């Protein structure tokens, strides 16, 4: 098995004007291939920092981070990232945005036709074949986010990293994309790490929910295993007692154990 992430004893410190600021400490996490992990916690708990560490956008000040047994020393195409604000390049069409990633990973080994095929496949996966030649400003927010997912998946990453990918979308679009993401992940057997602040989203999508304590010096508070059978259906879960007890467990962690002091 080559698809997995291993985080050992990781600490992340930022130098600030007021001196060193410890954002994360003692992070230990092993992610199995095909697993869907969500990171949840109050804002400022360092969940995005942890994701950026896995992405290689940040390097830890202490500890070891491995992806498929190789040390993470920087960003790489083995870890596809979906950003919160889609981050499509506005001057490129949806096709070109995805193609940029495909070309980078497979450009050296595959023909032009194969690259175009991969790009089209990725867009088809998120049902956006019809929008391939559109510019990002011509499509809706939900569609942009789907292109972002297609771009990340087109690189065939070992791990898909998502930083609150649906945070900026309205509730209906969000639900729709969550359903689509579940299907895509089931089809592609992707390993996913997703940052979220949405309890329902976490329970619906995850195999395990990593709950983080409040910062500064945040760490992993509890890890909740979500043993609901897959595929999951949001309507059926609405009346499922196990779903509600899991949801209750996350809420209890967030609002009792890690209650925010009144701001």
């Amino acid at each position, binding site marked *: 098995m080559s698809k997995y992430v291993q985080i050992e004893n990781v600490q992340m410190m930022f130098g600030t004007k007021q001196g060193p600021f410890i954002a994360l400490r003692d992070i230990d996490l092993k992610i199995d291939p095909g697993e869907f992990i969500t990171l949840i916690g109050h804002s400022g708990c360092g969940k995005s920092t942890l994701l950026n560490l896995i*992405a*290689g*956008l940040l390097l830890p000040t202490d500890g070891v981070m491995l992806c498929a047994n190789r040390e993470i020393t*920087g*960003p*790489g*195409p083995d*870890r*596809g*990232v979906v*950003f919160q*604000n889609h*981050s499509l*390049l*506005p*001057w*490129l069409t949806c096709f070109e945005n995805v193609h*940029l*990633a495909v070309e*980078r990973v497979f450009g050296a080994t595959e023909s032009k036709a194969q690259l175009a095929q991969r790009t089209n496949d990725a867009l088809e996966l998120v049902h956006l074949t019809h929008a391939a030649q559109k*510019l990002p*400003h011509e499509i809706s927010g939900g569609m942009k986010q789907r292109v972002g997912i297609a771009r990340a998946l087109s*690189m065939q990453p070992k791990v898909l990293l998502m930083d609150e990918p649906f945070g900026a979308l309205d509730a209906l679009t969000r639900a729709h994309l969550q359903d689509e993401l579940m299907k895509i992940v089931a089809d592609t057997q992707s390993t996913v790490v997703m940052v979220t602040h949405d309890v329902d989203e976490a329970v619906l999508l995850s195999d395990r929910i990593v709950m983080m304590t409040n910062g500064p010096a945040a760490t992993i508070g509890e890890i909740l295993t979500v043993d609901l059978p897959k595929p999951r259906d949001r309507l059926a879960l609405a009346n499922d007692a196990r779903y509600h007890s899991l949801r209750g467990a996350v809420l209890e962690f967030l609002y009792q154990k890690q209650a925010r002091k009144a701001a």
Partner: protein
Amino acid sequence: MMKIKSFFAEHLLPPAIGIGLFILAWSLIAQTGDNLPGPLKTWDSAVVLFSDPFYQNGPNDQGIGWNVLASLGRVGIGFGLAALVGIPLGFLIGRVDFLNKMSAPVVSMLRPVSPLAWLPIGLLVFNASNPAAIWVIFISSIWPMIINTAMGVRQLPQDYLNVARVLNLSEWKVFAKILFPATLPYMLTGIRLAIGTAWLVIVAAEMLTGGVGIGFWVWDEWNNLNVEHIIIAIFVVGIVGLLLEMMLIQIAKRFSY
């Protein structure tokens, strides 16, 4: 019918009134003395002038068309050279903080200097008036291009750079797919400002250097005491400047995302 009417009222009527009032004020001022020709006299003169814009009677007596083209040529060359030097320089200054800090004092000190102050240096170095005029255009156009390009590079959203990092794009790809297109609107603003300044400056530069050109033509007609022609020249300079500006706005629109 309603549509045509409201389009006329909203878009054509106000400018027409503005131009009408301008011409009225002009003719009133012209009537108070006999030095300044009025609109009608100027119009008659313009009809004669533009009936043969491309005649050639030796180097100091050419049609107004040749004069405008000569000025546009100088602006084109000076401006083009400034773009060739200024835009790459702007990219470097925007991308490398050390270069930015290094160049900041020189640029801020030289930028406010009237480009005409550089004319004697041009005459000294090139020993000829035409290259000296081009040199003045070069100097006047280069600052907005450096400054705006560098600003565009510095304003590059971190998101795009993060995309470049997670995709692990090569330096060339980063430049071609991210840096250049993201900077282009700023660059075009710089180009628009540069052309505007260059066209402002060329008239003054040519008055000093002589030769064929709209600026020298104005000076020549002043010596001939042909005030109608000077007024016509003012209109020509204004209209050409307006056309240049509109052309660049159209180009900029094409590249705004």
